[in-house]
């Protein structure tokens, strides 16, 4: 018989306001095996934990039930408390009477009754708990960063700086991500390339960092400390080791009409290309969709002009298998497609552009060499209208319900820079709210209004109508003066909402990392564990977790790196002891469990059994490798003879909970 202690937490008034904690402690004290029962204001506080420790020692407790917040919150805390008092940490069970009781029931009588039942179920479970000891597994001291934008670059640099090897997998031919396409960065107006490209070069030069550019993650197996990842290195038809990046092929290629995706299709490039001058690695790539040689076998100009002999038309995709201890997701974002926003005439008029396209139009390395010209006729625009929240904070279903966070600031930047360079251009900004929380952000926005005379108008644009004379008629309402406005504009710039990269969803499935309804990765705890995924060994960096500007992304990248460094610094990892175990006396070696195990943790061995008539029988029985088993329990249900059970969540334990609840 266990000697069980029950500890009911008030959580200040969080629990005590809707659950009679004293009545719960009193009721549970009469449960079989309960020798001690107490309630306290904050069980997780030092005094509360001391109360638990003292009770364990004074009453020789063999099991502990804490009625408190969710085990997802403080299970580890209370397990450590028990361990400090000499009790096996797995002899602690939590009854969740806060998130799943006090916070959701206003009726105190009903809440109290439910709390007692939940406590009773936990007591019934603890009766069947057994001390568990976690196994250990080694750690591969190498990290993988998926995505080579500013988030991935910063994470990789920080991890490498601590002395660990890092691989970056980037799907584009070069690292750098969205930041390479930006002109200036708010609120300091630093040149984006000037602050990013040195970091890209650092990545290339650091011998601990290996860049797999033009590559994708294909398969992920294993678990924290021991991931095996298959990386697909897409054929670029150029030998990376030979190409010097001279760029001669990109000038001589006769196929000139390829949309330049780096400039968002605003100009063209050749079929063989280097995305931009500072690309890392600076290696040419052949676009197989447009190359005449790859399509028809006729051309071969690039091979003829290449003095390094780097062109290889027969190159195929390579599949590389690597081992990692930790994986960082840094897949970033994209602006949404604006096809469903017909009112802004994005598809009809080339002079309606997204903010990222505007960024290229003002960039010295962009299609216009940094001079702001209308895409339709190459003339200088005299009136520009910026529209904010295009698809952001949109609950109509066309866009995204969330705030994209960065648009207010980059629009202020665009407006300010336009007025600075072209004082004769009138600039209007239509907004729902201007949101500028951040260091020196509001000051920046006020400068745009006060110093640069940008016209900020609260209201939404209803329609953008292309006119016969080439201008755009913008119909909008001014919500403050309650007037209808008609502005004849030369250009309209849409602050499109941002969404997670499309590669994130299949990647999340591969990593078994969870996502929210908008396909942003979920963090382990929204406040206290913001850079960890709930899946151990998977970390989050940058906009894959939610919309973020560059300073925040860099801060999060550093935080993710520090978590990875902490993990890789360990020589051994303590595993989860709640794994499956087979009772060899019951097992008949039918292989049902092996077939459902997603980890291949179950193997079979021939075992000798002494029979009653003094003969020896050899039988095939299942054996679980505890280092590989993740404790899902699929095998326990598949087993027809009831031989397979899950430690910590055994059949008898769950049945006991069911019985306690249904009593």
């Amino acid at each position, binding site marked *: 018989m266990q000697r069980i202690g029950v500890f009911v937490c008030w959580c200040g008034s969080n629990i005590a306001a809707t659950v009679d904690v004293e009545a719960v402690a009193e009721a549970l004290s009469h449960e079989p095996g309960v020798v001690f029962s107490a309630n306290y204001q904050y069980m997780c506080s030092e005094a509360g934990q001391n109360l638990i420790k003292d009770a364990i020692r004074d009453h020789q407790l063999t099991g502990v039930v804490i009625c408190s917040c*969710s*085990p*997802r919150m403080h299970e580890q805390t209370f397990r450590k408390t028990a361990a400090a008092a000499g009790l096996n940490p797995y002899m602690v069970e939590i009854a*969740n009477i*806060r*998130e*799943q*009781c006090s*916070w*959701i*029931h*206003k*009726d105190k009588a*009903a*809440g109290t*009754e*439910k709390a007692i*039942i*939940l406590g009773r*179920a936990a007591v019934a479970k603890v009766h069947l708990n057994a001390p568990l000891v976690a196994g250990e597994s080694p750690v591969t001291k190498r990290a993988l960063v998926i995505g080579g934008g500013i988030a991935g670059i910063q994470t990789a640099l920080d991890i490498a700086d601590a002395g660990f090897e890092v691989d970056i997998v980037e799907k584009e031919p070069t690292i750098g991500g969205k930041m390479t396409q930006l002109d200036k960065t708010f609120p300091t107006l630093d040149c984006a390339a000037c602050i990013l490209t040195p970091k890209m070069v650092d990545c290339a030069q650091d011998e601990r960092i290996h860049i797999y550019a033009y590559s994708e993650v294909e398969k992920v197996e294993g678990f924290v400390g021991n991931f095996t990842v298959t990386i697909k290195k897409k054929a670029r038809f150029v030998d990376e080791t030979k190409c010097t990046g001279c760029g001669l092929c990109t000038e001589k290629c006769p196929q000139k009409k390829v949309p330049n995706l780096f400039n968002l299709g605003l100009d063209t490039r050749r079929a063989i290309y280097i995305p931009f001058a500072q690309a890392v690695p600076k290696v040419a790539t052949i676009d197989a969709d447009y190359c005449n040689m790859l399509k028809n076998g006729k051309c071969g100009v690039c091979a003829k002009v290449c003095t390094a002999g780097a062109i290889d038309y027969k190159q195929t995709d390579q599949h590389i298998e690597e081992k990692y201890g930790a994986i960082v997701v840094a897949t970033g974002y994209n602006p949404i497609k604006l096809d469903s926003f017909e009112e802004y005439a994005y598809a009809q008029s080339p002079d309606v552009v997204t903010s990222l396209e505007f960024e290229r139009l003002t960039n010295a390395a962009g299609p216009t060499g940094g001079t702001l010209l209308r895409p339709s006729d190459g003339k200088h625009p005299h009136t520009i209208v910026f529209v904010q929240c295009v698809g952001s904070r949109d609950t109509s279903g066309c866009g995204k319900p969330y705030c994209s966070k960065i648009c207010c600031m980059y629009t202020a930047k665009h407006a300010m820079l336009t007025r600075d360079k072209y004082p004769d251009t009138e600039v209007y900004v239509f907004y729902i709210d201007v949101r500028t929380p951040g260091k020196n952000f509001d000051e920046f926005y006020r400068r745009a209004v006060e110093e640069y005379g940008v016209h900020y108008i609260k209201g939404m644009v209803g329609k953008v109508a292309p006119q016969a004379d080439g201008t755009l008629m913008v119909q909008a309402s001014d919500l403050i003066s309650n007037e209808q406005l008609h502005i004849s504009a030369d250009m309209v710039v849409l602050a499109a909402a941002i969404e997670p990269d499309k590669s994130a969803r299949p990647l*999340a*499935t591969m990593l*078994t990392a*969870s*996502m*929210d*309804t908008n396909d942003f990765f*979920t963090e382990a705890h929204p406040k206290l564990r913001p850079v960890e995924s*709930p*899946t151990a060994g998977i970390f989050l960096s940058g906009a894959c977790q939610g919309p973020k500007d560059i300073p925040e992304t860099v801060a999060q990248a550093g935080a993710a790196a520090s978590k990875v460094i902490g993990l890789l610094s360990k020589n051994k990892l303590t595993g989860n002891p*709640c794994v499956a175990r087979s009772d060899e006396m019951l097992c008949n070696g039918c292989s049902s469990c092996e077939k*459902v195990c*997603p980890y291949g943790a179950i193997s079979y061995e021939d075992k000798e059994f002494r029979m009653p008539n003094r003969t020896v029988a050899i039988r095939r029985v299942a054996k679980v490798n505890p280092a590989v088993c*993740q*404790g*899902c*329990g*699929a095998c*326990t*249900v*598949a087993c027809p003879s009831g031989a397979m059970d*899950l430690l910590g*969540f055994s*059949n008898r334990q*769950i*049945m006991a*909970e*069911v*019985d306690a*609840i*249904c*009593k």
Partner: protein
Amino acid sequence: MQVNEGFKPTIVAFCCNWCSYAGADLAGTNRLQYPADVKIIRVPCSCRVNPLFILRAFQRGADGVILCGCHPGDCHYTTGNYYARRRMTLLFSMLDYLGIERERTRVEWVSAAEGVKFAATMNDFVSTVTALGENKRLEDLRCKAN
């Protein structure tokens, strides 16, 4: 359908640790109300739920049992919820054969971010089971005696 006023059903909810249990926590954090008749049992994965647990619950007098797991494709253990879905399909057709109303059992996918869905699901399930009334079909009086 008659409405059983005053009847408080006993409802067992099996929730997987990674998605639905976290979704239930989120419903709590957001103070979304649902009836206290729902009692949650935490399991590592929906595939840990043996059909026998559900039969046991009905034997012991549960009026409704709901199993919640990660959305298909999102299982923390990759395939667990697919096993759960198949097993429950079989079990539910057997329960149907035994004369247990189909509405007393349910499988729902609730992610860690869907606190609203969790509360809405529970509200709906509780009102459905309340309308059905007490479940005595499988109740084992020998179980009740001890």
